[in-house]
């Protein structure tokens, strides 16, 4: 079985300042990979490389076995969509207008009826229909995050890359956002790469985890094998107790080591 998305020996940085070193991982179609690690571990850089926003200094990223550097920007935009951590609010744009931008790689100078219909459906699915014509600036952080997710889903790609999608959200919105991602991954066979800080959420919603530390892979696999109490102590410098409450993995930080 060949991988859908594979990151092959990716390195980034120059000389002594290596941000990423020899990172390799393969994702099967419909898989959710949780990308975890302390601040500065290289998660964001890896996200940018997969999106084509940064070029690796070594290694490559393959989609269906093809090197992504060979793709035109538009072709890539039809395959990979990006949910950023935040969005600029420089000029007033409505929720509908913002989501519609996700149709950009599929349209000419203006959106078609089909583009509008796709957005209308997604707004319903993400419970945003009541906000459709509100300006983004009037929305709460959770609503805004949902709009950015809707924009990425409107791109109708087979890969989704999310950079800290839950770090600014309350627990209700955290659950809702990740549940939508998990549903979409299952329904449409969308492969997702999620950079995320919250270990409980990462363990719960990912099919497998990739733990980065100082630019290198220090753990890879399902959550039980990746996040042992000993490894969390090594990588994060925190004494944790790992438990499972009604099927949900919980990481209780006790003391700094």
């Amino acid at each position: 079985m060949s991988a859908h998305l594979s990151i092959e020996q990716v390195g980034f940085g120059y000389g002594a300042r290596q941000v990423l070193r020899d990172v390799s991982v393969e994702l099967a179609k419909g898989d959710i990979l949780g990308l975890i690690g302390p601040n500065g571990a290289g998660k964001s850089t890896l996200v940018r490389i997969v999106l084509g926003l940064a070029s690796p200094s070594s290694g490559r990223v393959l989609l269906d076995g093809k090197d992504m550097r060979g793709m035109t920007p538009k072709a890539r935009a039809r395959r990979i969509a990006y949910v950023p951590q935040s969005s600029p609010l420089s000029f007033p744009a409505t929720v509908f207008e913002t989501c519609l931008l996700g149709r950009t790689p599929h349209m000419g100078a203006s959106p078609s009826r089909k583009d509008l219909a796709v957005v209308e459906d997604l707004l319903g699915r993400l419970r945003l229909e009541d906000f459709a014509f509100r300006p983004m600036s009037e929305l709460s952080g959770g609503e805004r995050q949902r709009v950015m997710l809707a924009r990425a889903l409107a791109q109708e790609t087979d890969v989704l890359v999310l950079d800290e999608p839950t770090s600014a959200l309350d627990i209700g919105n955290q659950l809702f956002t990740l549940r939508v991602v998990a549903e979409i991954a299952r329904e449409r066979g969308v492969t997702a790469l999620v950079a995320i800080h919250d270990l409980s959420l990462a363990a719960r919603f990912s099919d497998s985890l990739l733990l980065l530390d100082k630019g290198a892979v220090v753990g890879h696999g399902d959550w039980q094998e990746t996040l042992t109490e000993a490894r969390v102590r090594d990588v994060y410098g925190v004494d944790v107790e790992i438990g499972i409450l009604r099927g949900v993995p919980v990481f209780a930080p006790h003391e700094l080591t």
Partner: protein
Amino acid sequence: MDIATTAGLPNGHAALGSARRYRQAGRWRLAVIVLSALALFVLAGAVAVVGISETGLATLLAIVVEKLSFGYVKANADPQQARVLLYLRLPRVVMAMVAGGSLAFAGVLMQAITRNPLVSPYTIGVSSAAAFGASVAIMFGVGFSAAGLYFVPLTAFLFALGCAVLVFSMAWLRGMGAQTMVLTGIALMYLFSAMTAAVQFVATQEQLARVVHWTFGSLNGIGWDAVAVAGLALLIALPLAQAKAWQFNALTSAGDDVSRSLGINVAMLRGLAVVLSVVVSAVVISFTGVIGFVGLIGPHVGRLIIGSDHRYLIPFASICGAALLLLADTLGRMAFSPTVIPVGIVVAFVGVPLFLHLILSRRSEYFS
């Protein structure tokens, strides 16, 4: 407040599907653009005949028709009157519209690529560079007048272009980031303003008067040659920018990274916008002198009325800028007639109250 009410559609359409409502708002915005363009032309005609005795719109139309039909249709107008209209009044009126439209157009593009509502041809240094170029030409131009009448505008244009190249290449070195462009532009604006002031120190009384007059910005003595050059620049730039309108939407409301992940070549888009906005505004400023305010508020007035979608904003802000400058110049001509107050001064008197009114009365979320 939402886009539907922005374009004048009454509220209470919650039952409509959002796709249908979006299309409806689009049709309203289109109607607003067409109607305001028509209103602008009527206004221009009315303003052209104001202040010329016994001349009405009918006379103006007859004279224009006579000219366009190469005398085939006779206007039977007083030849003196016809000359005043054709060679003094009409070029001035048309230039007011072209200049206002160009500066607002340039402002929309510059604000879009920098995502900064404070940017305009003035704040990015282009106007100050042109003013310095004009001062140098006025001071040291004697003996170099090979280019004749066009020596001052040509020098002003070259300096404006040089300033833009500086801003552009600095930003290029730093990856075409929005912040670099704004900061470099502001720094250069101060530099060129200081150099213009320095030049004024060594100017004679007569030169000083000309330099000061130029820095006020005025439409006195504008002929069809200036209208042709500036009008052509705008007519070429408008459709080129309009073709990228959707990409400007992405750049302003999604940011650089997301725009790139949507398949947009952001560096190329910025480059195109810089070239179009700088050429168009520099051409206008070289003929009229520094007219500062329109490039800043034209885009805001447009956005407050029609929303941020650049497919509508680019043409509509240009119409707003044209109307604003036309009104300002007419007021400047009439207020203390026969003394003409330079349009660069009047536009602030007209624009600031209008602007403040819009900020206070319209969308509270606009300047969040």
